[in-house]
C-alpha cells in the first residue's frame, strides 16, 4: 500500500504473532502486509464504532423511558385513559 494523499505512513507496535499472521495471509494473497493489517483494522474499527453507536442509542432510550411513571408510560405508549364518571346516588 503506497503512501498517497489519502494514506499515511506510521509505526505500529504489534505482537509478533499478530504480525506473523498478517504476513502469512499477505503472502498467500500476494499483497503487501499493510493491506492485510489495514483490512483487519478497518473491520475492527467498524465494529467498535457500531458498538459505540449502539451504546449511545441504548443510553438515550434508557434516559427517555426508565424514569417514567406507569401513567406516563401508558401515555408515551399511545394509551390514553380518562377518569370514569362517578355516578351519584339519589
Amino acid at each position, binding site marked *: 500500500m503506497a503512501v498517497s494523499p489519502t494514506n499515511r505512513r506510521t509505526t505500529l507496535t504489534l505482537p509478533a504473532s499478530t504480525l506473523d499472521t498478517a504476513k502469512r495471509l499477505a503472502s498467500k494473497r500476494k499483497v503487501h502486509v499493510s493491506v492485510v493489517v489495514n483490512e483487519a483494522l478497518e473491520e475492527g474499527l467498524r465494529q467498535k464504532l457500531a458498538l459505540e453507536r449502539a451504546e449511545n442509542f441504548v443510553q438515550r*432510550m434508557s*434516559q427517555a*423511558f426508565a*424514569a*417514567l411513571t406507569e401513567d*406516563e408510560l401508558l*401515555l*408515551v*405508549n399511545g394509551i390514553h385513559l*380518562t377518569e370514569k364518571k362517578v355516578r351519584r346516588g339519589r
Partner: protein
Amino acid sequence: MNGPFVFDTSAESWLSREQAGRRWLLQYASRHLVYVSAVTVMERLTGFGMAIAQAPPDRVGLLTVMRDAYDQNPNRVLPVHQGVAWAAAELMLLLPMPPSPAINSHRRMESRSTRVARWRFDIIIAATALVWGMPLVHENARDFESIREATARHADRFRGLGELALVRCSSVV
C-alpha cells in the same frame, strides 16, 4: 440473532426499561438500526406532550429532557408511504374493530373511539413491517396475532408480501 426488525411502540419502551432488554438492544443495535414506524414516533411525541401538559411544574423539566432523549434518527423511522397505506387499508377492511377490548381499570378507562384509533395505529405499524419485509417485535400478542392471521388467511390481498412475521419481545431477552 436475526434482523433487522421493526419495533412496535410498546416493545421499544419495554426493551428500554428492562435490564435484560437493554442488554439485548445493545447487541441488536450494534448490528442493525432499531426501526420504528413514523406512527410510533407520532404516538410517542403525542404521549410525551400530554405527560408534560399534565405534569406538576417540578416534573416538567425532567419529562422534557426524557422526550428530547428519545432517538428520532430519521434513518430508523420508516415512513407511511403509498405501499404501507395500501396494506394498512386492506388490513382495516379485514379487521375493522380491535380484537381486544378497551383498557378498563376501576378508576380509568379508554374510550371506544380512542381504542379504535389505537387499533388503527397498530395496523399501520404492522403494515409497515409487512411492506418493508421485516418481522415485527411486539408485546401485544392478542392484537398482532389477529393481523398475522389475516395476512396468512388472505394472502391474495397482500400481493406477494407474504405473512406478517412476529417476534415477541419477551422471547428475545
